């Protein structure tokens, strides 16, 4: 863990003219760490993840990602940042008419890789998630767990610096949940910062060294203080570690 990968400074988010769903978020996430984002339904977890994977912009405050201030960044600048982020959506968001191979290959192809550069890594990644023999299957013919693993393979194929997973074990049994967690921790060991939104506190307990970020009603609840000043990230000027 060498630095800060994400920094929020009094960030707020509202949709349209509605009330703020996220208020005054102020935190930093350390590079290479493993975070769980928890909180009750409607707390704003998915909204926070949307900010992190740049599907939404904050309506106020300042957001820094990979050391770059992104709040006022031009729209054209965002794809380059998105390519450094891997996302596992709760509903997988696989492209239904593409094979598992093509779904996993998508980030590489979008990044401009040639077909020769795509073939090997995608086969390897599908084998890593245990789907080597399902490469040509389309998502509707895959089970929920298989779809989840294709989604994970797609999220990590580009070796992202930041991996975000929204309820990655929400639709799978305990054994599959353990396997998915294993995949995520393996990515974390390779240096990827991992943020997992989950309701499953068992998952949190099963991940030694992971830190907890808790949201309630759109604000950060931080009883441990680890959130504001995660290990490896020094306190900001003028702030004392609680």
């Amino acid at each position: 863990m060498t630095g800060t990968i994400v920094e929020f400074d009094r960030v707020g988010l509202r949709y349209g003219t509605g009330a703020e769903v996220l208020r005054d978020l102020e935190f930093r996430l350390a590079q290479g760490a493993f975070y769980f984002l928890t909180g009750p339904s409607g707390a704003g977890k998915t909204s926070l993840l949307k900010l992190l994977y740049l599907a939404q912009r904050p309506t106020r405050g300042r957001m820094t990602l990979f050391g770059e201030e992104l709040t006022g960044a031009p729209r054209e600048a965002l794809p380059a940042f998105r390519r450094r982020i891997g996302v596992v959506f709760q509903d997988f968001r696989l492209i239904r008419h593409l094979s598992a191979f093509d779904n996993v290959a998508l980030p590489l192809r979008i990044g401009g890789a040639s077909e020769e550069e795509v073939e090997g890594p995608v086969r390897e990644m599908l084998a890593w998630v245990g789907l080597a023999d399902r490469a040509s299957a389309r998502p509707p013919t895959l089970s929920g767990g298989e779809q989840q693993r294709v989604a994970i393979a797609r999220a990590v194929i580009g070796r992202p610096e930041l991996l975000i997973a929204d309820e990655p074990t929400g639709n799978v049994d305990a054994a599959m949940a353990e396997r998915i967690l294993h995949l995520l921790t393996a990515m974390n060991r390779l240096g990827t910062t991992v943020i997992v939104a989950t309701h499953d506190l068992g998952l949190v307990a099963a991940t030694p060294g992971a830190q907890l970020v808790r949201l309630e009603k759109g604000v950060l609840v931080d009883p441990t203080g680890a959130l504001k000043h995660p290990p490896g990230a020094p306190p900001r000027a003028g702030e004392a570690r609680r």
Partner: protein
Amino acid sequence: MSYLLVSEPERRLIPSSGVRGPVPLLIAIMTFVMVVVAAAGLALANTASVVRSGVEHRYSIQIVDGAARAPAAIAAARAAPGVALVEQVPEEDLRRTLERWLGPAGAEADLPIPAIIDVALRPGADPATVKSAVERAVPGARFIAHRASLEPLLEALTGLTRLAFGLVLLIALASAAAVVLAARAALDTHRATIEVMHGIGATDRQVARLFVRQIALDALLGGVAGAAVAGFIIALILGGAGLAATLAGAPLLGWSDALLLALLPILVALLATLVARAALLRALNDRL
């Protein structure tokens, strides 16, 4: 051009059936109408040109009730500079013409008829000089440009030609609007795929490229089909319009016109491609 070069894996992202819809048929109909109207406009322009060149430098000297003074007028005209031809219209011809309008009364000898003298000037000759020479020699003689008589017809032909080309532009605009709607509909149909692509880091250009190629192919397919049907119908009409062509003194449509009409579907496809690209990039820009 890079918008038309899409790899096989990229093509799989957007199934062609999802873009196609009514676009080829719509473009075919639009191109059909466009080619027919453009052909009509070109034929009218050619006819106007033939008529104009036929009466260019042609004049008539009209001497009311003064056939006896015609020789003086002819002599004065022949002596004027730049005159190529002076020829009196025979009285029988005039009476025959009158007979068509007045019946047998037109042929009666006691019906006074004017003397009409055709004059052709060489290119660059000054008609005012000839006019004043004739009027000096025969007071009361009228020196009339043929073009002045045909001006209303020429103006009507020019107006119709402009109308035809205006209609071609309007149809092109309507085609462009149809392409814009088709492009937006395609974006809506594939919203989920586009969101995934954007989320993974695809640029707007990468997304737009997937649709532009298909729309360009659809427009070319529809355009060529519409133009082919229009060409067949025009050929049939021109086959039956031999008399009109003979009267006009030239074919209603020349090879250059045919080439221009053949280029129309390609221009339509090009227009569709550019419009689709602009519409897609604009629509994508409204998303995050």
